[in-house]
């Protein structure tokens, strides 16, 4: 069960018209933008349930598109997301889809970054602007975006994860949940952790120096508002 806070109910301060279809969607987009770690050039959004039925009317498309450009849900530029995307040469497509037994407001994103990496994410907007991320790059996860997240890509060999967790231990940062998976080539592993406590920026540098680590992404709750 989700533990709601005061400002989940009185808040967020947001651009209308729908907390689940506009603010929640913008947060899902912004979450994806942060996890990609670089500019997104192409985005395909598979829209499920109520997202598929009503996305145009609620500005869900504008919100998702604004989010992947780094625009927050309380920023009135959100309304002009298509124009901004066009200026930056970002391609976007919205496809109604049946994603199975998932929350009615769910989107699956396929994102291509500036450097050509392809990245996927599935998330739901569960009401009042709150979100739940259920899949990242094929790995099943359970993130609310309300706790810090650490994502790594590293060589798939013994000791790398121990090296990463040793640093977290040195900073006395507790791991709430974690998921590890291999990519198809069998040489790279992805790891996603939800952590307790804000992550300092220099933690990233320390983690990047761990043997076998190729990429580190940190996401603090403040990044997605």
């Amino acid at each position, binding site marked *: 069960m989700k533990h709601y806070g005061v400002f989940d*109910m009185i808040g967020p301060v947001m651009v209308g018209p729908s907390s689940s279809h506009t603010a929640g969607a913008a947060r899902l987009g912004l979450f994806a933008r942060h996890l990609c770690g670089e500019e997104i050039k192409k985005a395909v959004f598979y829209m499920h349930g109520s997202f598929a039925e009503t996305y145009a*009317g609620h500005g869900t498309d504008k919100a998702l598109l604004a989010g992947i450009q780094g625009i927050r849900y309380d920023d009135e530029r959100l309304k002009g997301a298509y124009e901004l995307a066009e200026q930056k040469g970002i391609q976007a497509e919205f496809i109604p889809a049946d994603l199975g037994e998932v929350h009615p407001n769910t989107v699956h994103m396929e994102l291509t970054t500036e450097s050509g990496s392809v990245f996927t994410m599935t998330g739901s907007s569960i009401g009042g602007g709150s979100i739940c991320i259920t899949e990242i790059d094929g790995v099943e996860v359970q993130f609310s975006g309300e706790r810090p997240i650490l994502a790594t890509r590293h060589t798939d060999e013994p000791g790398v994860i121990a090296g990463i967790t040793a640093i977290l231990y040195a900073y006395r940062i507790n791991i709430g949940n974690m998921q590890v998976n291999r990519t198809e080539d069998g040489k790279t592993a992805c790891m996603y952790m939800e952590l307790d406590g804000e992550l300092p920026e220099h933690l990233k540098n320390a983690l990047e120096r761990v043997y076998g680590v190729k990429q580190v992404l940190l996401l603090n709750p403040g990044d997605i508002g």
Partner: protein
Amino acid sequence: MFILDTEKLIQKLKEEGDQPLWEYALNQEMERSGRSREELREQMDQSLAVMERSASTARKEPVQSVSGLTGGNACRYEQYRGKGNSLLGETASLAVGMALSCSEINASMQCIVACPTAGSCGIVPAVLLACAQSRGLDRQTLINALFTASAVGIIVGSRATVSGAEGGCQAECGAAAAMGAAAVTEMLGGTPEMAFHAAAMALKNVLGLTCDPVAGLVEIPCIKRNASGAMNALLSADLALAGVRSYIPFDEVVDAMYAIGKAMPQSVRETSKGGLAVTPTGMRMKKETQRGEEG
């Protein structure tokens, strides 16, 4: 951990020396977030400022929605009310105008405070600001009342849902009316027990309310549902302050609301496949907005 059983919560507040609900919510949030009392009150103050703006802007100047389907009603109603014609009296008619204003601002893609959701953003600000104005209550009291409202919202969200897609409009405007009713009750001197009676009555009044917006937009019937939700909240608070009790306790009403929400067909849970959305006029309006988008 926030106590979600209202009987236990009322008992706990009595044991704490008749602690008000707002103070309980504030203390819980301090514990949950690790933030200070001052920080939390400051954030609530900022939300209150956004509420004040959205509750007044569309009453002064007509505001149109982005789709062009609706708008101008908050201003129209304000002019009527200003002539002293309203059947509702000063406080209630002011609340109605404020609820319309917040909702019209929302539909025009300007900033509002979701409360608990954007679709129901007019109800809590309207009843609190209108009552504070007519009774001459200060800003700190209003901030306290917003914490009371949040406590009720937390119980609804945690035991059930505040999402229209999951529970229909009863989960959004129903939750908002319950939050507003409890907050007004406590703000005007009612006990937490009375506040929960008010919340229970407000939610009971709209059980089964569908979410069937025309063209999928948060406009028809959402904007007027905010006005009606404000009236529901004021009515329920008035009853509770008079000593009227809800026979069914609040948490049981919330559970019933959730069960009803799950039993509702998906066509009337924010998909715009049923109800008002598929009336001949609703369908025609949907076509008009789509033409507008293509053009």
